[in-house]
């Protein structure tokens, strides 16, 4: 187990800056997901760690060793790609064992022990003698993962390993990865654009945007407490509701989301204006007026994940152009929230994130 550190890392391709002065550590024995939209730099960062790409400036360390000048092979890393890399003509056990035979210090007994360990974790003992060509591509990808894991390299890099697997194999592959990651505690860098995959598999997520790390946090913390508007926008389906340019007066904000002025935390009390964000599932539609509720009108409703309704609301003075829009996610079966109806809505203060005035709603 070894950690990975990058220092002042930049990468340019011609005029295009893919990575901008990154400084970060991937903790030893944990899974760090590099998550972000296409073009954010996540794949470039992974390729630099792998030694497949040379940084324009900056250093890469495995533990205390600076590895910039080492080739991919010398770095002793494992890699799993989008498409499973397996050896045809030999069975599952032989596939996993093959790289171990290169290490002459390993006895046959030790090799078998390592292979059996991963086969057990993957519940694949029964398939050990199966020929690779008989397996579906999800199972092949499991074998490819098992091989890299059993080899115990210093670090293992995963480049969107689930993306191209058949839909029916995705669940078993995710389960296999989760088991391998939890049980074996290796240092793993996992690249994905899929927020669910990252939230499910990562110990920490490094959310990337335009060549920088927007935030690095534990998955739930990233989701619940985004530090900037981009994290609030990128995670969640749909992402946060944003309210920009809310004026701050005497440390308080007055806006149609609340029936009374709301006091800001000290960190934001001095700003001229702020951006507020709240996740749709935290907007509460309540039956009757409460101390925290504001009036709203339901303008649309659609059934989304797990039978919940995604509802759009006109909040505040619902008959005028001054009302503001909000999306809310009700629980499954909230059939009383009908289009055109007048409702009361709470924006619970503890769920509202306050961003600085420079933070505006991200665009795509």
């Amino acid at each position, binding site marked *: 187990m070894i950690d990975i550190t990058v220092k002042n890392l930049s990468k340019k391709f011609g005029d295009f800056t893919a990575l901008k002065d990154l400084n970060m550590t991937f903790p030893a024995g944990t899974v760090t997901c590099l998550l972000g939209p296409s073009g954010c730099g996540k794949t470039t960062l992974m390729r630099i760690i792998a030694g497949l790409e040379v940084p324009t400036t900056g250093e890469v360390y495995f533990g205390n060793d600076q590895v910039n000048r080492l080739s991919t092979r010398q770095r002793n890393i494992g890699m799993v790609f989008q498409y499973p890399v397996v050896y045809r003509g030999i069975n599952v056990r032989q596939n996993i064992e093959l790289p171990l035979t290169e290490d002459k210090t390993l006895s046959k007994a030790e090799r078998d022990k390592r292979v059996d360990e991963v086969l057990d974790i993957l519940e694949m003992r029964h398939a050990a003698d199966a020929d690779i060509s008989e397996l579906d591509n999800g199972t092949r990808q499991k074998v490819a993962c098992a091989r890299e894991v059993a080899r115990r390299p210093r670090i293992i890099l995963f480049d969107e390993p689930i993306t191209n697997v058949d839909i029916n194999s995705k669940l078993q592959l995710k389960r296999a990865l989760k088991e391998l990651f939890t049980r074996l505690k290796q240092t793993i860098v996992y690249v994905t654009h899929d927020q669910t995959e990252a939230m499910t598999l990562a110990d920490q997520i490094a959310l990337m945007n335009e060549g920088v790390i927007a935030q690095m946090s534990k998955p739930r913390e990233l989701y619940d407490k985004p530090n900037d508007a981009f994290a609030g926008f990128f995670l969640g389906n749909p992402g946060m509701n944003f309210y920009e340019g809310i004026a701050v007066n005497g440390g308080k904000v007055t806006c149609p989301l609340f029936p009374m002025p709301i006091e800001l935390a000290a960190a934001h009390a001095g700003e001229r204006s702020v951006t507020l964000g709240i996740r*749709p599932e935290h907007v509460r539609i309540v039956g009757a007026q409460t101390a925290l509720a504001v009036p709203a009108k339901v303008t*649309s409703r659609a*059934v989304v994940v797990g039978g919940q309704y995604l509802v759009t609301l006109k909040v505040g003075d619902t008959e005028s152009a001054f009302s503001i829009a909000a999306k809310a996610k009700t629980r499954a079966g909230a059939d009383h929230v009908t289009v055109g109806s007048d409702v009361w809505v709470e924006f619970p203060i503890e769920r509202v994130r306050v961003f600085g005035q420079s933070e505006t709603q991200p665009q795509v």
Partner: protein
Amino acid sequence: MSIVDLRNLSKSYGRKTVLRDINLSVQPGEFMVVFGLPVSGKSVLVRLITGLEKPDAGQIVLRGVDMTRAAPGDRNLGYVPQSFALYPHFSVYDNIAYPLAIARAPRDETREAVQSAARLLKIEQFLDRRPDQLSGGQKQRVAIARGLVKKSEIFVLDDPLVGLDFKLRERLIEDLKATQEQLKVTFIYTTSEAVEATQLASTLAMLDHGEIVEIGPPEELYARPARAETMRNVGFPQANFISGKLAQRDGGYWLSTPLFESALQQSANARVPLDQAVALPISVGVRPEHVVLGAAPANGANGAFEFEAKVLLREDLGGEEIVYLEAGGQQLATVLRSDDEQALDIHIDQTVTAHIHPERAVVYADGKYVGRAG
């Protein structure tokens, strides 16, 4: 009166029937989503409507006029194809204006139409740029704008968001819905994504293996699917299906599955009567939100089906969590809200108790609705 009327349309390639006896009436102002899995025939249907291909049988009636044999250019339809190509040497403006240039529209009219389409798709500030100066999402917006620039009341969009980033799709779903409402036009739109379909559609047509098996408002199809394929595919995560057996017993009918057993009554809405259903393959659909974790409340004769299950995986969507279970040799998915306290203390490989209310277990014979277990 319907603005688009498809009557008994069929299309085959060689021996392979791709579309079978399609009947679809689209009303003015409707957002009609033709929803189906890949290779269900969606794209072929679009090609028939736009006139890129001719049907083997049936009629295509547009605005009350039979246009089955009319050339594409005579149908006056706006069209957004699935894979788009922008002219790299044209500006964004000229790309959008292209269909009007071909139709030799007056310059003023063109300018107005291009600007209005660009405004709807939020690309006004890019009109002078060339496509290679745009992001993938902006290019897609240009392609959609080009499809919408035509002065028509009918637009056909063939899965325009397929393959786009998740976040981009989220935004475009909102913008497309708003665009259709503001233009007050008719959209015929295909997709294979359930949540995209339910968010966009005013009416949803379920296309399965070349046949439209069910049409209705999306919430209605979600709540009361008459076909197993509709229940399985309209909704995310997909509905669970458990195989079952139906038998006559003590003068009534008895349903048994690996997870529960129950008497079954004849339902008024059944597509297959019970006496015929016994001879057909039986499957029981349960939506993920109706697989409830925890012990069943004890409430007498019509109590919930309770069973033990092993937790296979927790998948965190952010706002929700999908928990995959294994019970009685069946794999089941359930959904929790992340703010449910229950969500906190479930771990992989743990054994949990779960239950299903009988009225949430929907019984199908050969894919057709028979009744509910309660």
